[in-house]
């Protein structure tokens, strides 16, 4: 049973990758010029995206956030962080797989060590002893792998319930779903409760931040879109945390008058050289 399942999973990954490629190939030639002109060119489906965003926000407001608040009230911060660690640790094999697919053997080694330490010493992942030992958490996923291999990001896309994404990351999400070892052995519907639990727990850790973001933003939809794209771009290019610095695209942000009209690589589109 499991071997057919694996085969089916691999087929689906392949199909989703191909679909993603096909879709992006048909889409607009991605966006050009970081943070410059009207950025509707990478968000051509904005009207639909806004509707889904509105829907997600309402689910959050009326279901997820209240539940998360309840959980936050019951669980001390330490517990929330441990639960979060647990889920992060569960994802480690996928991170390693994606390290390898992106030819990052050092990170893969570190992440294997991390998984070993946190699963054993860290009591199946509830405690993170690996970070202080010099094995920080890497965020690698299939979406980044596809980007690393040069697949363009494609238009911005808000997924129902799952939130901000783009065509490439959506394909990546499907890939990660099938690469997850748990998915090979356990039926998908059994995996839903843990996923929900994870969502509630992560939301509980973000109560204040989301509230702040909503209050601070002028257009919450754009705020989230931009934050997502900036962060994904940084992750894809493995920029040191906290900056777009050192890249020409990053420079254009700070010299808007000097920025020549270029037909450089699309922003957030692929790894920078």
């Amino acid at each position, binding site marked *: 049973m499991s071997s057919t399942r694996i085969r089916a999973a691999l087929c689906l990954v392949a199909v989703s990758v191909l679909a993603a490629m096909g879709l992006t190939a048909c889409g607009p030639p991605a966006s050009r010029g970081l*943070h*410059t*002109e*009207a*950025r*509707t060119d990478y968000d051509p489906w904005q009207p639909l995206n806004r509707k889904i965003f509105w829907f997600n926000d309402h689910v959050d407001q009326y279901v997820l956030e209240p539940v998360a608040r309840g959980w936050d009230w019951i669980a001390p*911060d*330490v517990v929330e*962080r441990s639960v979060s660690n647990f889920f992060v640790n569960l994802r480690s094999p996928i991170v390693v797989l994606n390290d390898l697919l992106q030819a990052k053997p*050092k990170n893969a*080694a*570190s992440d*294997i*060590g*991390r998984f*070993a*330490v946190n699963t054993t010493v860290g009591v199946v992942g509830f405690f993170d002893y690996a970070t202080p*030992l*010099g*094995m*920080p958490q890497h965020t690698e996923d299939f979406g980044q792998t596809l980007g690393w291999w040069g697949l363009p990001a494609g238009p911005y896309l808000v997924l129902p319930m799952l939130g901000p994404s783009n065509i490439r990351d959506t394909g990546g999400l499907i890939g990660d779903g099938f690469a997850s070892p748990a998915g090979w052995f356990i039926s998908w519907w059994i995996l839903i409760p843990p996923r929900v639990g994870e969502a509630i727990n992560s939301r509980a850790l973000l109560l*204040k931040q989301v509230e*702040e973001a909503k*209050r*601070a*933003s*002028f*257009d919450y939809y*754009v*705020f989230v*879109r*931009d*934050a997502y794209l*900036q*962060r994904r*771009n*940084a*992750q894809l290019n493995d*920029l*040191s*945390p*906290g*900056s*777009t*610095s*050192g890249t*020409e695209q*990053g*420079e254009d*942000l*700070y*010299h*808007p*008058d*000097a920025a020549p009209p270029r037909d450089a690589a699309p922003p957030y589109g692929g790894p920078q050289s």
Partner: protein
Amino acid sequence: MTALRSAFLTLLLACALPCAAALAAEPGAADGSGPRANVQSTTSQVIAVLANGSLSVDQKRHKVEEIVYAQVDFETLSRLVLARNWSQLSEAQQKQFMEEFRQNLSATYGRNVESYKNEKVQIIEDHAEPRGDWTVRTKIVRNGSNDINVDYRLRQVNGTWKIIDIIIENVSLVANFRSQFQEIISNGGPTRLLQVLHEKNERGEPLKAPAAATS
């Protein structure tokens, strides 16, 4: 068993790498008035105010505002946030934008004065950017929670280094506001932007105007 052993070998290897990286970190620019010194003094002054138990919330907000006003170049910040749209604004509108935007920022971030929980700021490193700006990377160390990476972008204006952007966990404040304002401007022009800003400030109980510490 062998798997376990190799895992620990990788562990050792992984431990050695960051140490080597730390040794290579550069000390930074000129001492005294350099960009690193600016960030160092700004953050430590702010933390000193926040940690000062004898000040009221309002006093804290005013003091923090004073420090920040002195170190941030709001004009450059405003220009960068509006980018090419800046020239669409009349001179009066530009002034109004700067003022309202500054008010908005201090109202937004001033709220956080109350939630200070003994966080510390560590400067990680600093480096020059290709066209003369400087980046100082810091992290906010929180008790028990994950650190927050905060980068400061500085530019030399009339001989002094001033902060022109703050990048929190890879999200640049300038870029993020630029996207939001761009959306508003393309739907309703600069007038609409000023109106939205103004309305938000009215709603968001900004600070009662402090004895003008204008630049």
